[in-house]
């Protein structure tokens, strides 16, 4: 499969009339399973295959995506013609960060291939979890989702690079749903990996814990709105750093805005000396990590904040040149239907020095939040919602509360981090990140516990 596509791509690139041209060709097979309550709701086998051509001429980009690969030369000519139409209007000298041309063949180094596991085994595993959930006290329903994807990815550009990568992605959520009177609550165990089906196995304890949390939530009061000191568990802290600072570090939103560049200038202090934030594509078996990004740039670990001070940004080849920095391997695309834009991979807060018990001390009234349910940012503000939350009273974890949603101002909140835990956990969930209409892109997070002062919590005001 490799050789004919490589030759096809290289031949087609000879038709380029642009300053730079690249072709991506992908084929992904996906298995998707959904179980709700006693019903198997969906079992599907999907194939997504196609390609795109992206061309740059005098500052203008042309982009074409397609399903049929039989006239690739024509697609190259069309994308180049689009770029030239723009380039002739713009006439801008936009360079791409230089990357050494490479020919590389990167087969999947998978620990256990999800796509090789028979469907009947996956069904048996998920139906087993479902039975366990439905047998837990006060649980009335369930919601189980699972997917695995196997991708053959080919990339070639007019600079002489050709890369093949084999990728795997899998994820799932095992949610227990409790209903009493007119109130429905839920909690879930979640998993994800880019190389190992085994992460889906042996989750019985997590499933039981989720079912018990959903049951307890039936009796939990709604949180009272206000401003609190909040301790985030590693899962939630990972979501926080993704929303609160990761997106702001994506340089394609900064590179032509002088005021934003000033706000995020390297050397600016935004936290205590204990705060270190990095984004990486090489940490381990996390969703979204691989050897090369969608511009053929090797992934790496990139420090965004070092000892409380801005240390770097996330880049594509274009944004790197515009900001005078190096490409970081963060140009990623959801699929062949989209051009690459700057995206995170595994975003982490490095461990600090504080034990969890130390963080609790001194909080007379606060909230301990666990499990990142979801978050969002618009640059200056962000929100994040936990799966479950407990009040902290006089330095001890107290009663569970529900319907907690937190918000903060990015710049103030980083400064309000006053303790970073000495633990560290990677979190891989089945969801993903959204930006520029490309969602859900697989990403992961890693973090210790983190304590933040003055976090605004929405809810009822009593």
């Amino acid at each position, binding site marked *: 499969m490799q050789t004919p596509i490589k030759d096809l791509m290289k031949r087609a690139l000879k038709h380029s009339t642009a300053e730079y041209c690249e072709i991506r060709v992908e084929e992904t097979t996906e298995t998707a399973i*959904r179980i*709700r309550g006693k*019903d*198997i*709701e*969906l*079992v*599907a*086998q999907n*194939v997504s*295959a*196609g390609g795109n051509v992206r061309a740059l001429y005098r500052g*203008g*980009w*042309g*982009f*074409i*995506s*397609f*399903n*049929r690969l039989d006239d690739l030369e024509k697609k190259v000519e*069309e994308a180049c013609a*689009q770029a030239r139409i*723009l380039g002739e209007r*713009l006439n*801008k000298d936009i360079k791409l960060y230089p990357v050494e041309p490479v020919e590389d063949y990167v087969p999947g180094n998978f620990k256990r291939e999800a796509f090789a596991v028979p*469907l*009947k085994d996956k069904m048996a595993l998920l139906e087993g979890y479902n039975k366990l959930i439905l047998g837990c006290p006060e649980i009335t*329903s369930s919601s189980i989702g699972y997917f695995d994807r196997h991708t053959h990815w080919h990339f070639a550009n007019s600079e002489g690079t050709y890369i093949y990568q084999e990728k795997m992605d899998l994820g799932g959520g095992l949610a227990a749903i409790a*209903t009493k009177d*007119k*109130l*429905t609550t839920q909690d879930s165990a979640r998993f994800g990996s880019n190389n190992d089906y085994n992460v889906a196995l042996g989750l019985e304890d997590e499933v039981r814990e989720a079912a018990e949390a959903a049951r307890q939530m039936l009796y939990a009061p*709604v949180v009272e709105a*206000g*401003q609190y000191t909040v301790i985030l568990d590693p899962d939630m802290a990972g979501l926080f750093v993704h929303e609160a600072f990761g997106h702001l570090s994506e340089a394609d939103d900064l590179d*032509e*805005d002088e005021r*934003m560049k000033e*706000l995020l200038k390297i050397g600016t202090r935004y936290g205590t000396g204990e705060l270190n934030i990095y984004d990486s594509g090489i940490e381990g078996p996390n969703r979204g990590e691989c050897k090369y990004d969608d511009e053929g740039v090797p992934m790496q670990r990139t420090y965004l904040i070092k000892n409380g001070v801005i240390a770097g940004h996330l880049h594509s080849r274009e944004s790197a040149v515009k900001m005078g920095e190096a490409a970081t391997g963060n140009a990623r695309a959801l699929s062949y239907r989209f*051009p690459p834009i700057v995206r995170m991979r595994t975003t982490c807060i490095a461990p600090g020095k504080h034990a969890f018990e130390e963080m609790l001390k001194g909080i007379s009234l606060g909230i301990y939040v666990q499990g990142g349910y*979801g*978050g969002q940012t*618009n*640059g*200056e*503000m*962000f*929100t*994040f*919602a936990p799966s479950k939350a407990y009040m902290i009273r006089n330095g001890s974890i107290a009663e569970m509360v*529900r319907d907690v*949603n937190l*918000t903060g*101002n990015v710049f103030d909140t980083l400064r309000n981090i006053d303790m970073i835990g000495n633990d560290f956990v990677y979190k891989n969930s089945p969801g993903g990140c959204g930006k520029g209409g490309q969602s859900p892109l697989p990403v992961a997070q890693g973090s210790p516990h983190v304590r933040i002062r003055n976090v*605004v*919590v*929405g*809810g009822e*005001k009593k």
Partner: protein
Amino acid sequence: MKSLLEEAVARGADATLVATESRNASVSFEANRLKRVGSTESLNLDMQVIKAGKLGIASSTKPGTEMQLLENALDVAQFGSDVSYSFPEPEPPASPKVYDQAVADVDVDRMISIGEELIEFIKALDPAIQGSASVSARVIHKSIYNTRGLDASLDKTLFTVSAGFQFVEGQNLLQSWDWNASTDLEYDLETMKATLKADFDIGRKNVEVKPGVYDVLLTPVGFQALISPILACLDGRAVMRGISPFKDRIGEEIFAPSFSLIDDGTMDGGLSSQLYDDQGVVCRRTPLIEKGVLREYLLDLESAHRLGRRPIGTGSPGGANPNNLLVIPGETGWEELLRGMKKGIVIDHTMGAWAGNPYTGTVTGNIALGYLVEDGEKVGRVKDCMFSLNVFTHLKSNLLALSRDVKDLGGLLLPYCLIGGVSIASRES
């Protein structure tokens, strides 16, 4: 496609095939300049088979692999859901007008000039502003076939214009955007410009908002946050599983009499109009909530069958999928509603309001773009605060008015909504 269905029958299966071909042309402007011209051709084949009472689903974007698609669907059907329905006999559909040859023929130069007009307008607001815009023209040909004789197709066009800006002053980031989508080549750039200018003029002044309970005017964009949990509760599958609080409440008044919600797949110009849903059920117009009374759920074939109701053309293989959704507007213009507010908050863009548990009805989110209102005037932007309300109680007891102005948010047609008693949490200085 006919031979594929014949093969399915020969293999002892009933089948439905949905084939969607589309081509899209777009231009995009970033950082005040033209950045990209793009075009997309896509093909999606979605197949459902029922064999021995079990449903198998497969899809493919790979041309020329139809027989493999059938094999995949039959393979997974062995493990698929038990279904209590059959694919429907064809019924005559409505014929919504959703195609405009002018959209199919629009050239890139015209799309560029639309974007340039918007970018020039934004740039004129301030030398430091960062404007973005995009214009796209899409042509869709969707066909549906089943082994009961259904063979229908619909051509649709979509023309979308969007524009927005980011303006940074110190650590203040002001973002605003607006868009206009239609099935024909009609667009209203002046209203978009007016929206962006109003946000630029007022949004640069921050004002403090004290925590408390306020009247709130939700713009159509803001109102979406309240509609999402209602749709989750109307989903026939959630009702079927007993987790929706709307279970066994058909005929009951669950919202204020001024609130009506309709699903309509037959509207001329409807961005989500279609002939048949993805299970082959003919689309129609169905009141879901009529004058506050629950009339119908969003149904797919399975939930309709199990709940003993007639399918309404909102089905897909995995559950319900609404067509155009309309909240019936009120009689007062939104500006008049604003002028009538003594003290309150306008909520336009929200963040994170989707993150709650829809079945409790609680909606809590950050006010990403909102304004404090005093004596009928927006006096400045509110930031770093959360709003919180309960859809079930607030739309029943606290709904003050709906505007006559409606915006189409991509098949979701909403008015402005004035609502009382909304809890606001904010940073304490």
